[in-house]
């Protein structure tokens, strides 16, 4: 396994197969992205999903992990909360969309963790606009 110490990982956890498609779409724009994972809830039990998230998290320092979910308060959000229970400092960002992920992938090596997660939340909000 490659040395992941110090690298920032993004884990997308969503309903259905959305996470997989988001990763595929991002890679269709930027090419292959390292340290970028999808966990799709599909037909799996919560315990299976939590184990999948934990398995990925084990490879990275906790302060270098960002979790993205599609829906705040949904089962994916709850499973991220379960996977990070007792672990301080891992950010779970809900309402994931393409602008957020594009910025994550392109800025994660430049901004520190706090700057980056703050930026991503703002980017997500700013990217939603009403048509005029």
């Amino acid at each position, binding site marked *: 396994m490659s040395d992941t110490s110090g690298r920032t990982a993004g884990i997308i956890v969503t309903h259905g197969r959305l996470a997989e498609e988001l990763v595929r779409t991002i890679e269709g724009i930027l090419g292959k992205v390292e340290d970028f994972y999808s966990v799709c809830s599909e037909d799996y039990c919560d315990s299976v999903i939590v184990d999948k998230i934990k398995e990925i998290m084990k490879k990275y320092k906790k302060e270098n992990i960002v979790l993205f979910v599609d829906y705040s*308060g949904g089962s994916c959000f709850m499973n991220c909360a379960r996977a990070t229970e007792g672990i301080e400092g891992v950010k779970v960002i809900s309402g994931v969309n393409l602008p957020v992920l594009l910025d994550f992938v392109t800025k994660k090596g430049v901004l520190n963790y706090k700057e980056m997660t703050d930026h991503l939340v703002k980017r997500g909000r700013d990217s939603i606009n009403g048509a005029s």
Partner: protein
Amino acid sequence: MLVLIRIDDRLIHAQVVIGWYEECRPDRIILADDKVGDNEWEKKLYISAVPSDIKVSVLSLKETADRINQGVYNKERVILLVRGPEQAFRLYENGLEFDELNIGGMHYREGREKVIGELYISEDEKSVLRELVKKSVILEARALPGDEKVIMNSRIV
């Protein structure tokens, strides 16, 4: 008044609070489970997933059966959730008799096999469901109100 009794191993989640909202118009969701009630953290997590206009009660299986039978919720429209067949059967054994049970969410984990659609059921769970069938409970498989209602009674033999 119980408007839905549902097996869903995700318990409270979007499919229940949003997907069933129009059909059920619930005043309250009861999460009936002996484990969740003892875990404050988990309890808060589930409660946080419910919009503020719907009340939530996290009760043990016995408390659930007792309180419903005492008529505590007679004036409310109630969705009752349990995580699996065992819990549904124990509600019944505790005196909460019901005619119909929605099998809404039983997801894949080791030991479970696909029975229909996205429902995965283990042999042990099937035998518990058969006990409910013996008590004349109709088992209807349906994740959402708009889905085709499939009666499962003959599919768990």
